[in-house]
């Protein structure tokens, strides 16, 4: 495959911070940790720019760095958790001998994990579709739909009329619905 993707860190924050943040928070479930991991990802990206071969897009490349950061984060907290568990007291009476292993090692019956993964993937797909929207439209949609700004505040902040806001929202929603239909529901 011939390298055809260029790297340009000048636009990383604008183009990829939301996508990477959403990717992270759906996996670590903590806003501050997610921000730290995204920040570390950009910094690692900067330091290893020479390794970028252009075979994948910048976003894919940054996401692969982020995935490693998330794995490292879990490794770190799990090793701390492991240390804590060693100090736990187990019941040693003869009646319950042997029970603790099963009780503590077996996974709890949890069917929601699959759903969580699917929701995270759906979020990624929505961000993929959002990245194809014109910048202004995507920004307005994000503020209104994801951050839940009320119409008046948003219009004042962006200095646009209410009708202009709804036109932008309508265009964004139509494009997103079509994109998701094609790439998520029918995929």
């Amino acid at each position, binding site marked *: 495959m011939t390298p055809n993707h260029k790297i340009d*860190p000048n636009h990383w924050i604008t183009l990829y911070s939301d996508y990477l*943040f959403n990717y992270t928070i759906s996996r670590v479930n903590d806003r501050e940790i997610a921000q730290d991991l995204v920040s570390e990802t*950009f910094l690692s990206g900067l330091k290893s720019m020479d390794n970028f071969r252009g075979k994948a897009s910048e976003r894919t490349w940054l996401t692969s760095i982020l995935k490693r950061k998330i794995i490292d984060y879990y490794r770190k907290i799990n090793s701390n958790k492991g240390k804590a568990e060693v100090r736990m007291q187990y019941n040693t009476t003869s009646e319950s001998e042997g029970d603790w292993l099963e009780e503590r090692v077996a996974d709890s019956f949890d069917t929601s994990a699959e759903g969580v993964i699917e929701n995270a993937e*759906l979020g990624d797909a*929505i961000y993929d579709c959002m990245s194809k929207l014109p910048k202004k439209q995507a920004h307005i949609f994000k503020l209104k739909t*994801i951050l839940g700004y009320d119409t008046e505040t948003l219009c004042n902040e962006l200095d646009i009329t209410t009708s202009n806001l*709804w036109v932008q929202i*309508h265009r964004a929603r139509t494009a997103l619905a079509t994109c998701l239909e094609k790439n998520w529901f029918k995929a």
Partner: protein
Amino acid sequence: MENNVFISHEHAKHICDKMQYGEAKFSERIKLSIRLAWCKLTRTYSKKNSRLTSSIKEAEMNCLKDAEREKLQRQFEKERRKL
């Protein structure tokens, strides 16, 4: 926009968009219901629109607030200057 209970498809789409954010007035919701009862095109739009809303809710989407993004940008620029 029309005062009449019979509204155009474009107006119906506008109300439908507002409904996704809980911003449609009661009278608008009535007008949309009437339109939905007989217009297949509006029904299709409404169905797609609602599906998008539930997908977004289901995905529990998140994004950075402007202040958070600015902080990230500042940190990034600071580190960049060090390299």
